[in-house]
């Protein structure tokens, strides 16, 4: 009982602040939790709402998958070869300091409005951190194991599957949880500017209409998606790792 109260407390606090803000600035400017809740409930029973949600989820996932694929394909060789690392690393740092808005502008010109922009922007935004973590994880691999692989002439497939991937999983997981956190923000931003559908586009639409309850409802939806994925996917994975961590990670 005490634990449930402890968990609910921050949310009650949020609702309290929200309600006070609504009362002090007026319901037109800041619709209260009650009014927003009613609009949100109305949204959630409509099929097209779920279409937008699924579209955003799909674009975010596809973008992150693309960023991760590039992160692995470039990160592992760079982790193994200091020369490759010196060549690629400054470029990745440059990419990392490039704000998503630049990618959105460029891609809108190159690719036009549609799904391409959000997917590629998410890939560009998540790639650097995935690359850096994967490259560092690979560089930190136990050299003794790699020498063993060389000695016993393990096929490349074996080296990747049995030594490199399990060896860097800790680093990769940290990078994925961070990347997942920014994925929905970047997807929504890209949709806001460059797409006719998806959550970001709905937020754009609501803001153009100055429909504050609708705007806040979509905000609640995207925050909920982030929370559910973090709590439902990353959290259990990390717990799992910690449980097996010290034993499996111990040097023989």
């Amino acid at each position: 009982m005490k634990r449930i109260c402890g968990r609910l407390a921050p949310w009650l606090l949020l609702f309290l602040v929200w309600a006070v803000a609504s009362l002090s600035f007026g319901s037109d400017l800041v619709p209260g939790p009650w009014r927003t809740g009613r609009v949100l409930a109305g949204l959630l029973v409509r099929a097209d709402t779920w279409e937008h949600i699924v579209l955003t989820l799909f674009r975010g996932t596809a973008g992150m998958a693309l960023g991760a694929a590039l992160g692995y394909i470039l990160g592992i060789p760079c982790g193994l070869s200091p020369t490759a690392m010196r060549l690629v690393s400054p470029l990745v740092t440059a990419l990392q300091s490039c704000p998503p808005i630049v990618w959105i502008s460029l891609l809108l010109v190159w690719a036009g409005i549609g799904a391409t922009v959000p997917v590629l922007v998410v890939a560009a935004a998540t790639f650097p951190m995935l690359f850096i973590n994967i490259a560092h994880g690979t560089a930190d691999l136990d050299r003794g194991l790699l020498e063993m692989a060389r000695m016993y002439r393990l096929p490349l497939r074996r080296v990747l599957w049995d030594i490199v991937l399990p060896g860097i999983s800790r680093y990769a997981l940290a990078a994925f949880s961070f990347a997942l956190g920014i994925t929905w923000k970047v997807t929504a931003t890209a949709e806001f500017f460059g797409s006719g559908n998806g959550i970001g586009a709905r937020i754009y639409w609501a803001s153009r209409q100055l429909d504050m309850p609708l705007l806040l409802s979509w905000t609640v939806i995207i925050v909920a998606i982030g929370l559910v994925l973090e709590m439902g996917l990353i959290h259990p994975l990390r717990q799992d790792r910690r449980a097996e961590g010290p034993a499996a990670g111990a040097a023989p």
Partner: protein
Amino acid sequence: MIQLEHIAFAYPGRGLVLADVSLEVPAGGMVCLCGPSGCGKSTTLDVAAGLRQPRSGRRHVGSRRIGYAFQEPRLLPWRSVRENLLIGLSGWLHGAAARHAADLWLERLGLGEASGKLPAELSGGMRRRVNLARALAVTPEVLLLDEPFAFLDAASCRQVADGIREFQAAGAAVLMVSHQRDWADDLGSRIIELSGAPLRVG
């Protein structure tokens, strides 16, 4: 056959570890290097294995089929004992032949019970035996052994010695580093006494 001729070796940015090492192990022969810790014995094995490039000198090894039991076991912590052996074999054997070789050597070194366990669940001596089993399972033509008898009980030492003797009889060249001179003598090995760094042999 293992041939090292006038090998000189230094780790990057450090002094010479091996100054001038020459030795030869013919097919079916066995050489044991004895000497104080840190005199370059393990480095000599690494050079023979081809894992370290000598600064000068010539290395010739008659076969690429090398079993190397490292000083520290070098097992994959996230794979079971049996999988570790199968992975070690994957460059040479596949499918049923690989499974047969792995199970045979696990059994022979008294690791049958441990085959499904992770390395972290084993004692230090058992991990050393897995390392040896991996080296023997590849049916090596060149066998490099770094302290194969260290931390093993008498029964395990005998199992390991039997395995080594078998491959030697089949024509493998065996180069080992050991403090256990009685076992080296028992195997009929030529013993090279080493002293002082940088190492000079031959």
